[in-house]
């Protein structure tokens, strides 16, 4: 399978964005979530790359990417994603964003509509006053997590990231996730910058302007981003399909491996 990587240098002379491309076929851009790096997509890359060209990247300030400041917005992160497409000379692409990446994917679809072939919004919300917020315990954990050592934080996140069934039946897969996550150094300042970006994100009023075919995917037991957000998003985006994974929590790609195949099929239908 063809695999290559590179760096896009920003005009500000300081921003550097690391990307990886795996496989051949219709291109799909994967946009990862809070505190993670592009490497967190390893399961999805393995699932999609036999039929597609899968592009992952590290958000600014995370993994092998750098940025001038630690003040982020989802608009800036969307423009970063498009600058990678420009560098790879890809005009149109399928976009799959997960969690914070889903917010960035909404911005890509709104700010650069001609670049998006089809859109998958996974475990995400659209912001605004109507967004369903996590309970107080989850919010307190988010604030505490930034000060924890990486391994402790990764294990302490388990009750929030995964559904109750996975926490007992899929311990090996959860351990694999954490092992992979710990391979990338955690940048506390970038994490806080991403939290700010997620907090400021507000696309709710403009979701009806998204023209790309859209699939909304969400775990029914998601504690980080309550599932009510998926219903709201799917109602607002014209023609959007909704797929609720009954037993899954926030990190459904680990808990429901078959979902990657369904997402691949959705992209193939809109190729």
């Amino acid at each position, binding site marked *: 399978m063809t695999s290559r990587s590179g760096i896009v240098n920003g005009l500000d*002379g300081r921003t550097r964005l690391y990307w990886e491309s795996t496989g051949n076929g219709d291109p799909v851009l994967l946009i990862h979530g809070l505190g993670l790096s592009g490497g967190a997509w390893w399961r999805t890359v393995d699932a999609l790359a036999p039929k597609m060209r899968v592009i992952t990247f590290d958000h600014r300030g995370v993994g092998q990417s750098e940025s001038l400041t630690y003040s982020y*917005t989802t608009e*800036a992160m969307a423009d970063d994603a498009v600058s990678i497409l420009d560098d790879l000379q890809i005009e149109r692409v399928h976009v799959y964003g997960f969690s914070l990446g889903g917010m960035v994917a909404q911005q890509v679809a709104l700010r650069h509509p001609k670049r998006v072939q089809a859109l998958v919004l996974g475990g995400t919300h659209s912001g605004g006053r109507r967004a369903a917020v996590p309970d107080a315990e989850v919010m307190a954990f988010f604030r505490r997590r930034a000060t924890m050592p990486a391994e402790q934080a990764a294990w302490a996140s388990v009750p929030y990231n995964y559904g109750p069934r996975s926490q007992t039946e899929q311990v090996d897969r959860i351990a694999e996730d954490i092992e992979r996550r710990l391979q990338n150094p955690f940048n506390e300042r970038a994490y806080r910058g991403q939290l700010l970006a997620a907090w400021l994100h507000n696309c709710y009023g403009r979701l009806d302007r998204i023209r790309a075919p859209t699939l909304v995917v969400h775990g029914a037991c998601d504690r980080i981003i309550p599932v009510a957000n998926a219903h709201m998003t799917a109602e607002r985006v014209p023609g959007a399909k909704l797929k609720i994974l009954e037993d899954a929590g926030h990190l459904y790609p680990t808990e429901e491996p078959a979902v990657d195949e369904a997402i691949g099929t959705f992209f193939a239908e809109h190729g």
Partner: protein
Amino acid sequence: MSFMDDVFERTVDVSGRVAKVVLVPWGGAEACVDAYEAAIRAATDVQLNAARVIAVEPARSVLASCADLTRDIGATHLSSVRWILDV
């Protein structure tokens, strides 16, 4: 919901309704917010294009950084305004 949260929600709600009425002569709240967004994007693009043309440092870096600042400060304004106006 606590008493203070309730007061905050009501204040924001009333402010949003008042702003919507005030903005009617200019095409309504949504049109005004869209126009502001378009202006921010235009200002950002002008600075970015200038940075691409002026390939001399530090002018290029400064222009690109100003473009980023314009976009991000504008994005923060827009997010807040959309939240208050609920548009």
